[in-house]
């Protein structure tokens, strides 16, 4: 579980050694888009050395690899036997998975994978992608998707509403992580609005492309105090009545509301927001 996934270019030591100070729940060392072609070789060495020698933090650590066959092979080869959570595989489609799986099997590489769905093609096979056993979660990659659709990315997000909903539903069906697309405008109010769209649909976390986005994302994706308090009262009344159906504050509480209250408290505990002695 993570609220923020911060991309860190793997060819920049200044960013790498500060990767864990921004309080992101997860970091993604990037070997792909943020690394120039002529720097791929050195970026692999830096990522490897960082994962091997740099003190690990509590943040989950992922590596976004390249998809071009020979680069993919070199990326996985350099990541062998290193301690990190998993791979982030861009341009995820069933065909891409086939290429990845073949290379990973050949190298004996076993790690969970978060796929980035960012091509129109992916949305016609989303259910099958989300059902792959090694897939731990999906990231919506809106920037590339919108380019592929020849559409325009807007603050309102109408152009990605269908894609967002599809990703959320596929992830819910297969009980995997639903991670929202990065927002590339660095203005905080715009980020807040984009986060609201994602939270409304049930996304559990969001990618960050700048450290300044991390606290905003962390706060937004954590349950609010009011939500936690309501969940605590729901659970307390449930324990008192032993009934799956009762009213609280004029609202009917039944199984789905109880489930949401349990989920809220689970998240609140995970993010250290719940004092067990609260009532």
């Amino acid at each position: 579980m993570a609220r923020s996934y911060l991309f860190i270019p793997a060819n920049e030591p200044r960013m790498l050694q500060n990767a864990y100070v921004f309080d992101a729940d997860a970091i993604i060392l990037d070997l792909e888009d943020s690394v120039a072609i002529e720097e791929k070789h050195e970026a692999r060495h830096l990522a490897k050395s960082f994962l091997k020698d740099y003190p690990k933090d509590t943040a989950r650590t992922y590596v976004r690899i390249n998809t071009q066959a020979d680069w993919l092979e070199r990326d996985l080869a350099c990541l062998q036997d290193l301690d990190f959570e998993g791979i982030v595989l861009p341009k995820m489609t069933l065909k891409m998975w086939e290429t990845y799986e073949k290379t990973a099997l050949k190298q004996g590489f076993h790690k969970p994978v978060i796929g980035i769905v960012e091509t129109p093609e992916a949305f016609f096979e989303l259910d099958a992608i989300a059902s792959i056993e090694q897939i731990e979660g999906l990231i919506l990659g809106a920037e590339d998707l919108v380019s592929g659709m020849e559409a325009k990315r807007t603050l309102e997000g109408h152009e990605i509403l269908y894609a967002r909903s599809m990703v959320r539903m596929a992830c819910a069906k297969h009980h995997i992580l639903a991670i929202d697309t990065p927002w590339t405008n660095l203005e905080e109010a715009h980020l807040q609005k984009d986060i609201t769209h994602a939270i409304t649909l049930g996304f559990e976390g969001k990618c960050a492309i700048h450290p300044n986005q991390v606290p905003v994302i962390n706060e937004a994706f954590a349950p609010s105090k009011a939500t936690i308090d309501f969940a605590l009262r729901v659970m307390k009344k449930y324990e008192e009545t032993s009934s799956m159906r009762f009213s609280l504050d004029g609202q009917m509480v039944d199984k789905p509301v109880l489930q949401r209250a349990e989920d809220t408290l689970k998240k609140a505990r995970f993010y250290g927001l719940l004092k067990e002695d609260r009532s």
Partner: protein
Amino acid sequence: MDKPIMTGSLESSDCLITLYETDTPIIEVDTIVHDAFHDHILHLIKDVLKHYDLEHLSVRIQDKGALDYAIKARLKAAIEIYEDDSNG
């Protein structure tokens, strides 16, 4: 080796490594933290060269405050280019 191999950069927290051949191998350490880390960096470079059995090569490092993992990564990247070139 036709020409020196260079890896890394002169950005803050990074280092620029130059790997080259000379009749007598030398290691030049030019660092912004000379007093505290000159010897440490020198030993780090010697260890990596020894590990690859390449102590006959010369290295110049222009260090801008890189940590050990970055220095090792930059040097290993240069060595891999050297080995690829050597193997044709």
